[in-house]
């Protein structure tokens, strides 16, 4: 029987929410790794019971946990993330050189084909890979050694590599995004990279259309149309129709084009979702109303989705990793808030209900649709 498994990372542990295909009643397990920050957990597309979790703390550093039974039991695997060679420096907030220092793993992206291969996006920004199920990790250093690497500077949340998109029709191609450097693309499985940010404008930068330096919050694609990318930038919702070669703005009628997550409907590649946030200094929804906005036209024309969401006195945030979709028909959409709610819609966003209301602040949401 079809099952949906929602993997939730929070400031104080991980939770796993499960339901059948109706998505009406939910079982909650957790906290796993109680008391630790879980920036992200994700399952392998090739073996859905193989899960990986990024567990970290300011006291004890980074751990990686692996489950082979869908999250019932976990074992710590390798967690040594050493930059390749002499790492050198990037640029600090004040413009001075600053040594690269590993802080944590923001994102884990299991290979589409091999459960033992996983990519990890780190702060300070770097891409690591394991090919042995997490026992050992090695940096794909071509990214950090890009000519622009020394100029990368952190966003307010750190210099994090937060998004890794694998491209199902081009196994050698991958997109990553870094705050605040931008989007980079490889076409040779991570050996070499180039920035793909043409068309982005960030008015707060000395050179608003600079090639590298944009605070890209999230990018997303639909696997059936991998040349089309959507982006929630610090400000602006953007779209590329040429695999990142150029971008154009599709913010349209959004009440604010600041926000963090962006995602694509599982079956409608032109249907996308964002959660507008008032501004970069507010980090809560405009007017105290938590609204998901949906565009069925790939941007520009947006409708507010409010049914079941608080429409007064709501001042939570939705972080970049905290939205996901399932692949049922109709498509389920899920997001978590810094107030600890995880909302689900089983009808593509028309109506919402909380699965849970009182978790620690939600850092990430992923969904698995299980046969």
């Amino acid at each position, binding site marked *: 029987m079809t099952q949906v498994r929602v993997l939730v990372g929070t400031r104080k542990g991980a939770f796993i929410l499960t339901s059948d295909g109706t998505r009406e009643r939910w079982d909650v397990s957790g906290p796993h790794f*109680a*008391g*630790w920050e879980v920036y992200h957990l994700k399952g392998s597309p090739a073996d859905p019971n193989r899960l990986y979790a990024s567990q970290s*703390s*300011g*006291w*004890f*550093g*980074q*751990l990686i946990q692996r489950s082979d039974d869908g999250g019932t039991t976990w074992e*710590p695997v390798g*967690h*040594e*993330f*050493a930059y390749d060679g002499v790492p050198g420096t990037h640029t600090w907030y004040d413009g001075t050189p600053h040594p690269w220092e*590993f802080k944590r793993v923001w994102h884990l992206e299991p290979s589409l084909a091999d459960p033992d291969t996983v990519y990890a996006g780190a702060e300070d920004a770097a891409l690591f890979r394991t090919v042995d199920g997490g026992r050992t990790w090695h940096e794909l250093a071509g990214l950090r050694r890009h000519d622009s690497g020394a100029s990368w500077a952190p966003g307010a949340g750190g210099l994090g590599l937060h998004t890794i998109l694998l491209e199902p029709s081009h196994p050698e191609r991958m997109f990553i995004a870094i705050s605040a450097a931008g989007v980079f693309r490889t076409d040779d499985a991570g050996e070499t990279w180039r920035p793909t940010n043409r068309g982005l404008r960030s008015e707060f930068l000395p050179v608003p259309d600079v090639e590298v330096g944009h605070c890209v919050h999230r990018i997303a694609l639909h696997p059936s149309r991998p040349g089309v990318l959507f982006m929630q930038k610090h400000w602006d919702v953007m779209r590329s129709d040429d695999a990142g070669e150029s971008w154009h703005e599709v913010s349209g009628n959004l009440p604010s084009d600041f926000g963090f997550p962006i995602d694509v409907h599982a079956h409608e590649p032109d249907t996308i979702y964002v959660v507008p946030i008032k501004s970069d200094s507010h980090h809560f929804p405009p007017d105290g109303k938590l609204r998901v906005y949906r565009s069925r036209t790939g941007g520009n024309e947006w409708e507010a989705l409010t049914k079941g969401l608080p429409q007064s006195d709501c001042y939570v945030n939705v972080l970049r990793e905290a939205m996901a979709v399932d692949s049922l028909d109709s498509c389920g959409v899920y997001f978590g808030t810094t107030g600890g709610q995880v909302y689900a819609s089983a009808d593509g966003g028309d109506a919402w209900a909380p699965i849970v209301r009182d978790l620690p602040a939600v850092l990430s949401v992923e969904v698995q649709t299980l046969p």
Partner: protein
Amino acid sequence: MIRVVLPAHLRTLAHLDGEVALTVEGPVTPNSVLDALEARYPMLRGTIRDHVTQHRRPFVRFFACGQDLSHEPPDTPLPDAVALSAERFMVVGAIAGG
């Protein structure tokens, strides 16, 4: 045997209920005790000392016999009372944060 006390989160990680008793070859120092600890509980590697630099993590401190040993060179011998099992080597997480 060297008796070691770990913070609660690291005891959970290593599936420990109480203190750890370790056999340490040669001089008993913070480094040799932690080497023995990590050899028995590999999941603790990197949690007390940084993986790469092997420096003590900033929010972790070492105490024994009522003394803060955190800033001693890590190859300094621990007090005899620790080596003789009369006192425990304590790895302490800072009381900080939320």
